């Protein structure tokens, strides 16, 4: 059975690397980066593609760094509408 598909976007420059999101994530999606941001903090990155969009990470984040997305059927239609690209594209898809 397919899991709920979620994703997050991290505003790495605002992240202070406190790791509270890592601790709050039930999926183990997040890890600390090996790089520092401009403020000198080791920011957070997504290391697994298993996010369910539960928003736990965003809820506990003291710096309002994380935006959480979850796939909905309504959103699928939206995607269909906005993609109107022509031309050659080489992309990688999973099989």
């Amino acid at each position, binding site marked *: 059975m397919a899991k709920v*598909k*979620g*994703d997050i*976007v991290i505003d790495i*420059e*605002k992240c*202070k*690397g*406190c*790791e*509270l999101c*890592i*601790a*709050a994530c039930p999926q183990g999606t997040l890890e600390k980066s090996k790089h520092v941001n401009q*403020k000198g*903090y080791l920011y957070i990155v997504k290391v697994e593609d298993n996010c369910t*969009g*539960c*928003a*736990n990470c*965003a*809820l*506990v*984040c*003291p*710096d*309002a*760094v*994380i*935006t*959480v*997305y*979850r*796939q*909905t059927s*309504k*959103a*699928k239609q*939206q*995607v*269909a509408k*906005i*993609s*109107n*690209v*022509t031309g*050659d*594209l*080489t*992309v*990688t*898809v*999973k*099989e």
Partner: protein
Amino acid sequence: MSEKKMLDDQHYEEMIQEESICINDNIVYEAPKSALYDTPMHYCPGCGHGVVHRLLAEVIEEMGILNDVIGVAPVGCSVLAYNYLNIDMSEAAHGRASAVATGIKRVLPEKLVFSYQGDGDLAAIGTGETIHTCNRGENILIIFINNGIYGMTGGQMAPTTLPDMKSTTSPFGRDVITMGAPLKMTDLVAQLPGTYYVTRQSVHKPTNVRKMKKAIQKSFEYQKQNKGTCFIEVVSNCPSNWKMTPVESNKWLEDNMLPYYPLGDLKTPDGK
């Protein structure tokens, strides 16, 4: 994995769905945009102040009360809250936030007024103002950040510091014989007829964050109905002065603070 050459839109659409769901319609959580400035906060990494600020901003936006709210932030780590919350705000002298909030509310009764106070502020130097504001049942929301320590001044003992807890002014641990037991202000104000809704919350876990948000929402609703003082204690952390990592501090909070300051409602409208 295989590489495919795709020329038609049909395939491309599928690819987008597969690759990114990060589009506006899919947002389930994003930082408040109108009530919170898009600026980094000065708080230490992992400090609960940031979460509570964000929740305040979320509620203010969702309730559409951006132009009706006036906040008061007294001296303490959160004195610069007005740099983060995009609403009308007043700084206050150490301990005097609830008096300042009283002054505002009394001349602008139709506005929604809240104070945002630390434990040193609310439970030590401002004890008198806190109790009398609650006793008069001023129609305001008091948010009380209890991190068991003086954050801004570098980790001195607060009235809420736990027994045996070390601070820079209780270097051998708080001795309750000479320094008194930690003051449970929330229990105290719950006894006063002027308070309408008194609750103790935390923001160290997602479920608690959700409950805290509800508590703020309710408090503003009650204030709109002129019900009296709403008082929310937030048992919070101070990783810097507790000398722990944020994750450790939340664990410590759960193991040590919560047994002394149990979470939950102390006074609700239906008397439960």
